[in-house]
């Protein structure tokens, strides 16, 4: 069997926001088709890692390659066009746009395939179909999360980076998000930042743990589930 090639490789990245260095040498290596979770305590740098990958946070040193191409220093909108989608923390959906407009604005192409993917999104999240013509500010938190995830699926993406989709959602809604992510990871490489260990372990196959801006551990999620010591040390579970 052919070894899956490295899709997203982050090596020794140091990144900063204004005067503050947030990542101090983070490295992740994500293979095509994997579902990887990034774990760690609040403020460890998980969100910054995702933002650094898509260029919303500046990189000082280290390398980031996506599908064999260096993306350090590229503007965010060009990185997105390379085939990475970001589902930001707190949804990032646009209140004054309807559900339809949110999805259409995110479409990089208006071809037949994009239309098919839009239909797929509406099948995956029937709530969005019902609220299609409504302003997204009228949606519940769970629906906004679905819209945000749905928005990342309307393009032909190679990888989807998802930042804490469970945040602020009721357990029953988190379950629906988990089901959707399990469906999505069949087709796409998924990188999931998550505090909710149940959701993380339901979706992820492999994990990285980020602590104080560095990646400190990685392995198979099934091993982490058994390793109470590691969980206690870095996740506070």
């Amino acid at each position, binding site marked *: 069997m052919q070894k899956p090639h490295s899709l997203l490789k982050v090596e020794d990245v140091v990144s900063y926001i204004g005067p503050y260095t947030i990542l101090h040498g983070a490295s992740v290596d994500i293979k095509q088709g994997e579902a990887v979770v990034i774990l760690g305590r609040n403020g460890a740098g998980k969100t910054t890692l995702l933002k650094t990958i898509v260029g919303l946070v500046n990189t000082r040193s280290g390398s980031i390659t996506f599908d064999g191409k260096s993306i350090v220093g590229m503007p965010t*909108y060009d990185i997105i066009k390379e085939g990475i989608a970001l589902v930001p923390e707190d949804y990032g959906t*646009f209140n004054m746009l309807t559900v339809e407009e949110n999805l259409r*604005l995110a479409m990089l192409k208006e071809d037949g395939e994009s239309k098919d993917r839009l239909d797929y999104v509406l099948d995956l999240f029937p709530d969005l179909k019902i609220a299609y013509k409504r302003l997204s500010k009228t949606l519940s938190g769970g629906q906004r999360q679905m819209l945000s995830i749905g928005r990342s699926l309307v393009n032909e993406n190679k990888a989807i980076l998802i930042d804490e989709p469970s945040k602020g959602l009721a357990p029953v809604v988190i379950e629906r998000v988990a089901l959707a992510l399990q469906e999505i990871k069949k087709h796409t490489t998924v990188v999931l930042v998550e505090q909710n260990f149940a959701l993380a372990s339901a979706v992820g196959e492999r994990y990285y743990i980020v602590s104080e801006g560095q990646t400190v551990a990685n392995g198979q999620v099934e091993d982490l589930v058994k390793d109470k010591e590691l969980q206690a040390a870095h996740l506070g579970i």
Partner: protein
Amino acid sequence: MGAILTLLINGLAQGALIFLMASGLSIILGMMGVINFAHGTLFLWGGYSYVWAYYVIWNRVAQARFPDAYAIGQWGGSVVRVDRIALPSGQALPFHLDLLIFLAALIIAVAIVFFIGMIFEKLFINKVYNNAPAQILVTLGLQVIFTDVARFFFGTEGIQIVPPNFLNGTTRLWGGTIVHYNIFVILVGLAVALIIHRIITKSRIGMVIRAGLQSPEHVKAIGINIRRYFTYIFAVGAGLAALGGALYMPFVGAVTSTAGMNNQILAFIVIVVGGLGSFLGSAFGSVFIGLMTVVISLFVPALSVVANVLVMALVLVFKPNGLFGMAVNN
């Protein structure tokens, strides 16, 4: 009844002119986060460009049609001078020429300032995004410099300008006096408001504007180069200010170099009163301030400026989202 009608028309015309300036200012502030103190100078350049273009074209056409038309003086400053031309008594340009000259001068004025706006954004504003103190310094600097450049070009004395013949009249109605030019200004304001509203609600650019008002970062994060839109939005805002300036000068009868700053203050008051970043808010706010200004200047002229500032202060204290609660929450 007649007085009320007159006031209403004047106030709406005033409101329409402020709106042309405030709408661009509001979107630039709300979406790009730029406090543009140079907006008044763009308005002023719109006014001067219009007056200059209008006289240059009108003089040529008049001299071509009436060989005995003669210069009776000059207008202008150190660089740009235009002749004041008198026509033989009882002569006037036909309607269609008047109309064409008027439209051409408006288009030239808007185009010049659109271009100036692009240069402002590319060379200066571009460098100071997310840096409010620098924005104030840069835009205020541009305001001062370009207002002085305008004085140098066009002179410090006011240049008289009246509306084109076909708009330069009045009608008596129910005891009130209706100035035709004011009706025209109201119609232009209304048409521009409807066009912009349609663009904002129906087009892809409108979607980017509505999304960008909430979060430029998230717009980037879905693969859109929002900076590219910024240049055009700034330039369109400049063009609208220029249209306002061009229509304002015949409204008051002369172009003077202080008109920019005065109207900029009104525009800032309007966007506070109407709600920051809201296009509809700036439309309603303009009408409100326009009507209030004419009413107060009639009854207590001494308070006309104070009243506007007072309204702004009260709105800031009691209704920080604008009088109509339309501010776009960032």
